[in-house]
Each structure stands twice: as structure tokens, then as C-alpha cells.
């Protein structure tokens, strides 16, 4: 039998700065918390076919079920084909994405989202225990856009890893400190054609309660990075 190996790991890196931009707190923690929603999307990919004839009409051809933050079960599409019935020379604009994370500024429903809860993790988690919302009001943080860096294959470590780095900045524009104790990654499943959006669902794919809290002072900021390492033999 081959040696035990964790094929995918994650790390959360947090850096907190004061209003002058000085680093006042930083840390790195191993993630332990991919959720059942993440596995559901993988199950969808396993089920997807990807070789239907041109003109095929199936909305969707392959789907899976995820649990939204409000606890309701939602269809997440993995493979779909849209057909426009009114004739030729139409614009199709058809397609979608199964698990997007690159949310824009001010969007606190997907991408990296932070919270102040401490409830223990379980695989059925669907939301942060207490989300810190985007905003400038008391208890809120201003959410920057999410970026995802492809750091590529690193063969300098053994075993080699392929590394992705999801990053988001948060600014405290309020007059009081705000404490982060949990970090989540939410994904977006979105499918549309030229006239309609068919699916638009956000769902939690990872959640970690941090072993130590991070306090963002008034006027300060935090940068949260989720580093995903695909481990290769």
C-alpha cells in the first residue's frame, strides 16, 4: 500500500494592519474544513458527460444539490445546454460556472467571507456562525474584491504541490475594533443564456474557526488569504 497522503490541503493566512499600515498581527493556520457542498460539486463533475451532440437541449444535463446559507437545498448545475426555440440567427450566449469564487468589491455573499462566530465545524456547515457583513456601519467590514493567483507547481517541496492563492482585503471603516474568529469560502453557481438567468446560487465550500482571533482596529485592515495546495505524488 502506498503511503498515506492528503491530496489537497489548505492554509489560511491573515495579516492585520493598523490605520498607519503597520502589521500588528499575522498568522497562518492549516484548513481542516472543506464542506459537503464542496464534495457535492465534485460529485457533479464525476457525473457530467461532456459529449452530447450539437443542438442538444438539457437544462441541466447534470446537476447536484447544495445547501444554501439559509438552509434550503438548491440545484447547482454542472453541465447544461440551452435551446432557443424561435428560430435561427439568435444569439445564444449560453453557459455558466459551477463553483466561482472571484467576488467583486462589496459582495459579501461569496468568495472569502469572515465572521465572528466560534461554533465548531461540521461537514454540513452551510454558513458562517456569525457573518461580518460588508459595510461601514458598526460591526461591519468593507469587503475588497477577491483575487485568485495561480502560483503553479512547486517541486522544491516533497511531495510537490500545485498552489492556488485566494485573497481578499477587508477594511474597518468604523470607529470601533472588529474581531475575526472564522473564515469561510463561498462559491457561486451561475448559469444563463441570452435572455434569462437560470441558476444563481451561493454556497459554503469551506469554513474554519481560527485557533486565535484577529482584531482589526478602527481605520485598520485585514488581508485574508486561502492557500489551496493540491499535493502530487
Amino acid at each position: 500500500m502506498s503511503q498515506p497522503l492528503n491530496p489537497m490541503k489548505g492554509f489560511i493566512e491573515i495579516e492585520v494592519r493598523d490605520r498607519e499600515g503597520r502589521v500588528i498581527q499575522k498568522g497562518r493556520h492549516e484548513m481542516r474544513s472543506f464542506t459537503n457542498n464542496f464534495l457535492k460539486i465534485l460529485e457533479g463533475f464525476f457525473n457530467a458527460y461532456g459529449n452530447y451532440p450539437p443542438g442538444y437541449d438539457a437544462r441541466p444535463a447534470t446537476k447536484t444539490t447544495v445547501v444554501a446559507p439559509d438552509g434550503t437545498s438548491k440545484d447547482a448545475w454542472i453541465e447544461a445546454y440551452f435551446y432557443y426555440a424561435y428560430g435561427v440567427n439568435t444569439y445564444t450566449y449560453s453557459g455558466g460556472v459551477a463553483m466561482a469564487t472571484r467576488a467583486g468589491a462589496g459582495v459579501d455573499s461569496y468568495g472569502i467571507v469572515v465572521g465572528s462566530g466560534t461554533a465548531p465545524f461540521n461537514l454540513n456547515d452551510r454558513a458562517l456562525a456569525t457573518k461580518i457583513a460588508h459595510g461601514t456601519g458598526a460591526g461591519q467590514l468593507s469587503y475588497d474584491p477577491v483575487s485568485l493567483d495561480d502560483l503553479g507547481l512547486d517541486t522544491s517541496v516533497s511531495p510537490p504541490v500545485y498552489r492556488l492563492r485566494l485573497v481578499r482585503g477587508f477594511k474597518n471603516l468604523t470607529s470601533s475594533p472588529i474581531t475575526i474568529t472564522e473564515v469561510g469560502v463561498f462559491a457561486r453557481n451561475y448559469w444563463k443564456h441570452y435572455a434569462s438567468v437560470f441558476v444563481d446560487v451561493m454556497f459554503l465550500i469551506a469554513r474554519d474557526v481560527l485557533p486565535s482571533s484577529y482584531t482589526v482596529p478602527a481605520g485598520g485592515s485585514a488581508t485574508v488569504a486561502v492557500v489551496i495546495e493540491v499535493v502530487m505524488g
Partner: protein
Amino acid sequence: MIRAEVVVELDGREVYRGESKSFVQNFGKILFAILNGTGGVPLNYTGSVSSATVQKPDGSTATVHGEYYTTKTDAQSGGGTAMGFNARAGEDAWGILVGSGSDPESPTQYNLKSKIAHGTDPGKLYYDVHTVTSSYSNTSSYVEITRSFINKSSQPVTVREVGLFARNRYQTSAGVEVDVIFMVARDVLPNPVTVNPLGSLLVRYRVVLTT
């Protein structure tokens, strides 16, 4: 915590179970392309939002898309998927494939060393359908994809490697816009497995989540 296993059964008897340690860099690239999507694009958006470059089994490179909207303006339909594995019976280009090569795994590999093709002739195996099963709980969940192979020839066939191949494909009624097959994992078995005539082989990739 995530684990991945490869299980091999010969004639209904488990002959290998081990940790899969063999994702290749193509998997990292398609994962990037999918996660790098944004969703929420305008209804008239067309083309790619998020893409990556993978290496195809012939060694050439190709662009795959994690988020894509078909572009043909004279088509009646469109759509696709970023990553499909569920190849039908007889399709030996993607899904779970088996081979006879024994070169060690490497993260830059893009193909089996020596694929055993679908067929009923000597040296070939009949590729059956895939099945997908799963189980979910608070503390331990898994999803697995399984494919069986039957030796319908008159000679034994020896398997030494297994691989997982994905298909990235987007199409309209006017034609196929993207169609890329690429390997995402390869495992070399510690001991060769010989499938005798009329014998069957089952290969299972299982991904396990635990708290």
C-alpha cells in the same frame, strides 16, 4: 480533511486499496479555472471568463474554461461543462482509463504511459460505463467514481497503471467550440493485476471528507 483512494477489484475481489498520490498539474489548472470564475455576468456576455492551459494526452497544450459562454451568433443552442468524467461504455479517451505502463508518477505527466485501448482483441479491455456513488454525514462523507473493464479477448491483459481523464467541452447547434480531454490523476499500482479472459476489473477513485 480530504483523502483520495484508489481501489482495484479483480473478479469481484479487492486486490489493491491505497491512497491516491497522483494528481497532476492539469488538475491544479482546471481547479484554478473553475474557482477563478465570477458568475453574475450580463446576459449578453459571450466567451470566456476564466480559463487555463492544460496539456493534452498528446503533449500539446490547449485552453480549457472554468466559466464560458458560447459565442456562435447563428446557433440555436449552446452550453457545456468545465469538467466531465462520466464517459459511456466503449469510450476510452476520458473517465477512468487503465494502462500497462509502470513509469513512476510525476506531477507533470499528461497521459498514461501505455494505455490499454477499448476493444475485444488481444491486449484490449472492454470499457464499461461509469457509476457514481456518494454518502454524506456531519463527520465523514465520500464520493466515488467507478468503472469496470472486461477482458473479452482470448489472452490475459495486465494492468499496471490507472488514470483519471476529464473532458472540457462547450458547443452550440452550429458546432463544437471547445473540446479538450486531459489527464488529472495517474496512479501506478504497486503490483500488476492480470485480467484473464472473461475476467473483470473494477477501478474506483474515492474522495473522502472527514472532520
